[in-house]
């Protein structure tokens, strides 16, 4: 195996007062190979988003504090990277899709403009920017892309907005796409469409995807490997099939049981028993 695309080592991030810190991420280490799909699973507040944002130092300091760790992307250290290099990394190498498409798009700019910004920032060589934007929108399945460039975010449905976010992320052909709960804010049918779209894009490009979710159901047929986070720590990791079949940690087991199985009669959702985990 060649050198990994991304390597995170002993990442530690805190919030709150220094004398009583909230350890949002506490000694997290993992690695990703090029083209690999890694799922990060964990309940709300377990530190998934904080980890994801830290990959390009997107957390505002303060309130956040990077207390330990190293992040290497294609062999370069992100933690000590100067600002211009960091900006070249963001969007160009590592692109993001966020949980809430409606608030993640700027309401006063057209979607065309917002995609254009990304392209102009990282691909100055592109002549036909407009054509490139249209292509990006086509790619994510927005019909009549050319006529929708002038639309404002609020004129689109939630699913469409998330597609625009994906188009924007893919416009610069990043090596790593970080999708932070890309479907949580959407309703079930749209969720499926977006996941199908991501799956399709994954097969078309050789892009690595870091999928963040709290839903093991999304993971099983999508991710190559899984990392399970619990209260800022990684409690289990391994190939998806293996983790699903033989979960080692009680928390993982509890998470897996939370997923209602298709075809099975709807039972009461199981409540995680924290007492048993600690």
């Amino acid at each position: 195996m060649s050198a990994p695309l991304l390597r995170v080592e002993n990442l530690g991030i805190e919030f709150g007062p220094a004398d009583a810190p909230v350890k949002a991420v506490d000694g997290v280490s993992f690695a990703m190979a090029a083209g690999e799909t890694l799922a990060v699973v964990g309940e709300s507040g377990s530190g998934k988003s904080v980890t994801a944002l830290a990959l390009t130092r997107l957390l505002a300091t303060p309130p956040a504090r990077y207390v330990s760790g190293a992040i290497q992307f294609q062999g370069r250290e992100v933690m000590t990277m100067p600002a211009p290099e960091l900006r070249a990394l963001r969007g160009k190498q590592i692109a993001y899709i966020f949980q809430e498409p409606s608030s993640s798009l700027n309401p006063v700019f057209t979607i065309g403009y917002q995609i254009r910004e990304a392209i102009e920032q990282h691909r100055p060589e592109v002549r036909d920017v407009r054509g490139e934007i249209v292509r990006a929108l086509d790619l994510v399945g927005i019909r009549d892309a050319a006529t929708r460039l002038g639309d404002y975010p609020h004129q689109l449905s939630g699913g469409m907005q998330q597609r625009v976010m994906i188009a924007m992320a893919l416009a610069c052909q990043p090596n790593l796409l970080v999708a932070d709960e890309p479907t949580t804010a959407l309703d079930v049918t749209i969720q499926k469409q977006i996941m199908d779209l991501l799956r399709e894009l994954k097969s078309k490009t050789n892009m690595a995807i870091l999928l963040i979710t709290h839903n093991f159901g999304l993971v099983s047929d999508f991710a190559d490997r899984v990392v399970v986070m619990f209260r800022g720590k990684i409690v289990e990791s391994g190939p998806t099939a293996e983790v699903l079949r033989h979960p080692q940690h009680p928390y993982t087991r509890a998470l897996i049981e939370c997923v209602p199985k298709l075809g099975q009669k709807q039972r009461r959702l199981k409540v995680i028993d924290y007492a048993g985990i600690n």
Partner: protein
Amino acid sequence: MTTYILRRLLLVIPTLFGITLLTFLLIRLAPGNAALIKGQTGENGGHAMTAEVREQTIKLYGLDKDPLTAYGDWLVKLAHLDFGQSLVDHRPVLTKIRERIGLSVSLTGSALVLSYLIAVPVGIAAALRRGQRTDRMISFVVFLLYSIPTFVAALVLILLVAGGDYLNLLPMYGANSIDASEMSGPAWAWDRIKHMILPVICLTYGSLASISRYTRVSMLEVLGQDFLRTARAKGLSERRVIFSQALRNALIPIVTVFAMELPALIGGTIIVEEIFTLPGMGQLVFQSIEARDQFVIMGVVTISAFVTLFGYLMADILYVLVDPRIRFE
């Protein structure tokens, strides 16, 4: 968007009626006029009215009619902007106002533009350095300025830079020099500008506090928004994130604040025009109040209210135009 604007326009109608009703009440409840309504000989601020003035007052304001008819007549008169004739020089009130409104409008307009030019950057700076020394300093200074009465500032400025006790940089009073009529175009304009500097400063500094505070809050609200994270994640520079992405959002509510400043500015022109002897509407109304020239007073009050109402209307329409969320409803 059209429905929004239409709805807004419809709301103007009751307000307009309210304004006319309030001016009507002011007239009928003024002690002198109230006496006339009761058939007594009215007084004009402690002085007995002459028969002629009494006649004119009764006729213009319909004091001999029942309130409803009188109000109807008042509305008709207002629709024609007919405020009668000045008791002082017997010229139509509307003509007198027309002669003077230009100066006051340019005065308030310049003050408004200037306060935006200063207060918006200041407010943004405060928001970007929230809670730090700069933020506190700005807050201190704008409130200090806000707390100085206009006439005190005017006096001090005149003492320091006009009139010659210390510096003699600017003229002390008037809208133009005495020999202005003989000046060439550009010289005249420069002369006018020099005469306007101090008055505009006096009108401006008080608005800095509210506009800059408003900008600060608006900016702070935007700075916490998710889409800025998206912009940063795209690799945009911090400057671009703030001055393109954030600012555009923060400015939307600020463009409409100008209307709220209008009443204070119009009040300010009364003082400023009085101090600097500028022949504007503020001076007109002040002289009329001193002369108990109630036709002119009511004319100026009504016109000022109409202008302010128009300002509010413009602000709301402007809001629709600059905010795409409402524009494409």
